[in-house]
């Protein structure tokens, strides 16, 4: 059904007149011209499309647009502030928490949302929380180390 959908995207208001059953992923990547959230599996198994909706990590490929009506959506493009990288982004760079980089946006957003609710997690908690996000290159240890480091440096910002 065509509907007027309004939400905040990376801090700025967005309004769209479109079919409300379209998925958030393709609206972000198409209509809203963001390419950080990636298509990886289309069924919510891999996490490459992860974004935060009201600070909760969701799979944007499984999220109908109507579900974000009136909410706050944050994508990887929204992590920087005033030209400064977020501590998580810096830590991923510092620790080499990526190789091909295709899963990285989703990893970062999953970790970001996690740190919002749990600013000082244990290593085990990080592992458990990140377990649903797939990385084929095998950067796992470095991703965990990066999240631990970012948490220590106030990554819940």
């Amino acid at each position, binding site marked *: 059904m065509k509907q007027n959908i309004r939400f905040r995207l990376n801090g700025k208001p967005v309004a769209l007149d479109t079919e409300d059953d379209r998925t958030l992923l*393709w609206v972000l990547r198409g209509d809203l011209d963001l390419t950080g959230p*990636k*298509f*990886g599996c289309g069924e919510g198994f*891999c996490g490459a499309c992860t974004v935060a909706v009201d600070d909760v990590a969701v799979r944007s490929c499984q999220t109908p647009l109507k579900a974000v009506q009136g909410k706050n959506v944050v994508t990887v493009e929204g992590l920087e502030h005033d030209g400064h990288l977020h501590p998580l982004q810096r830590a991923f760079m510092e620790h*080499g928490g990526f190789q*091909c980089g*295709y899963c990285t946006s989703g990893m970062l957003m999953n970790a970001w949302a996690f740190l919002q609710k749990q600013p000082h997690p244990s290593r085990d908690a990080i592992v458990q929380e*990140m377990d649903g996000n797939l*990385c084929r290159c095998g950067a796992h240890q470095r991703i965990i180390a990066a999240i631990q480091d970012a948490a220590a440096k106030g990554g819940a910002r």
Partner: protein
Amino acid sequence: MRRRNVDVETDDLHRAALFAVPEAMDTPARQGNGFSRRSFCKLLGGGIVVLITTKPGRLFAQRRAYPEDLNAYLRIDENGGVTLFSGKIEMGQGIHTSLAQMAAEELGVSLDSVSMVMGDTDQCPWDQGTWGSQSTRMFGPAVRAAAAEARTVLMNLAAKKLEVGRDKLVVENGVVSVAGNSARKVTYGELAKGKQIARLVDEKAALRSLKEFKVIGRPTKRMDGHDKVTGRAKYAGDVRRPGMLYARILRPPSHGATRKSLDTSKAKSMSGATVVEKDDLIAVLHTDPQAAGHALALIKADWDQPAAAFDTESVGDYFLANGGAPEVRASHGDVTSVTANVIHSTFRTGYLAHAPMEPHTAIAELKDGKMTVWAGTQSPFGARAVIAKTLGMDEKNVRVITPFVGGGFGGKSSANQAVEAAQLAQIAGKPVMVAWTRGEEFFFDTFGPAAVVKIASAVDDQGKITTWDYHVWAAGDRSAEMFYDTPNVSLKTYIGRGGPKVHPFGTGPWRAPGAGTNVFGRESQIDIMAAAAKIDPLEFRLKNTSDARLRRALKAAADAFGWKAGAGPSGQGRAIAACTDAGAYCALAAEVAVDRATGVITVKRVVAAQDMGVVINPEGAKMQMEGCINMGLGYVLSEELNFKGGAIADKNFDTYELPRFAAVPRIETLLIPNDDLPPQGGGEPAIVPMGAVIANAVFDATGVRMFRLPMTPARVKAAMKT
């Protein structure tokens, strides 16, 4: 470092100049390359350009649009900026950084002043493709030679300008100054200004020695990091062109199926959808990818499917029964001369998906007779050739641009999605993106083949291996060499790695093709013999090899691991295995725990020791080794394609299980210094012994030997009961 080949709109004069190259190359280089090369350089514009030659025909025999003897070039522009043009691509392996490091090292400039242009067929010299851990070891020397020559040219210019002898000059960060008088200086940019100098060098140009290295050998952070953590890094699916459409293509239910009927009427009536019907290419195009999917679902088709010759479980027996005559790959002594205490083993592995996180994606645009295709591919020049052939176009009118590639592992060696996108763009007259779904990715992957290894071997009462009779079906002989001293050796391959006549679907190279299977077989059998001889498996290996690099790798891994001697099964759950691959040696030591009740294997720790010659970027090398170990956990513990004939049951990650965070062990990597040897392949060796080291550790923990990968909980549980 900037990356400039993604956005065609913002490209600079390189592209404009190089567009004209194919025309300028109408006189083939081999018939008078002086003229061709001069024309070529002229077209590049001002500055200093160094072209590299390697032995003609070695890696670059099929190149068309460039002088035949040229395979890399480097340009120092009038602002002192350095651009390295390479037909290689970046898919996560880090050569975007390591190639730039090599250029920066030889030139004497900072790393951040080097720009890379990679995988663009109009801007970069021809390249066969990015695979086989070859970029650093084979392409690296050419890059270093180019940079060294550029430095010589610049130093000569500087000597003239500063009126001193060359030996009095020092260079740092692109500034040449007189030793002891840093005020007398000139920058590379100033030297290059107004010049148009082109040089040709071969690989033998004087290179800096190891002792002089400032950039090579230092752990260096990845130069693509910033783009990748901000979402700015562009992959093929992130390219947007005006008026573009998304395609979804009708696919058969199984490989080998033939279409009996087709009804596209409902799809045609859907608003905004365009249906393309051209021979076997049935597709729908739409401005929204989801809507294209809805339109595809409206197409009805019936198919005839061929009978299945074998499936996940029967593939090994099928190969054994239909393997035909062997090819003898190695033979010495007489393996039939030993008949006492011969141990016979059969090892099996399954088909493996590459499963890169980025599915095959491409977008094609036909404009003014030129087809430009942005594609996630390991082989941009190969893609260009196939696209040109399929479309009936001249190669010079096809350009393939390779943005960042979201993982390849051998699976993006062919680029069918780029061909499909180009075909549809030609038909539609609009830019078309083809982005395979995960289901299509699992269907059209070129899977690593299932394989079988049979070994008959024996050990004498001195603990020496006396015979080694090795047979392998469908894995080829990569890494199969018997590097333990054995008087009687036979190595035979059957059906190579298979091919379209053997496998019911596409197969191809999967990270270190076949090597994981061969080393699973060999290093398991070595362990079996060590246990039979009641000798510690490390000691048994050392006792049976005089290969110095192998011995060093084994000892390094064992020392770092804290190896405690004891014949297997020692109950410790620890093991060792080694391989040679791509010119490197790698030994892994691992510790596991096995839950006998559930069959679940927990890999607790893996120590990797790798000798890969000179290491350009130790940080990058370690990342590759860790990646190998993590990725290796998949084919060892959970990954195996489920299929029946050409029908593939796995369609997504719910049934084809990749390694996850919770499975990741403690990993320690160490690089064995070997600066006497040029750089060897580092992107693959550490994945190779993973099957053997984990299977050996399971044996050490439980006394039960696993002969088939992956060692799923069900298989382990079953093995524990027998």
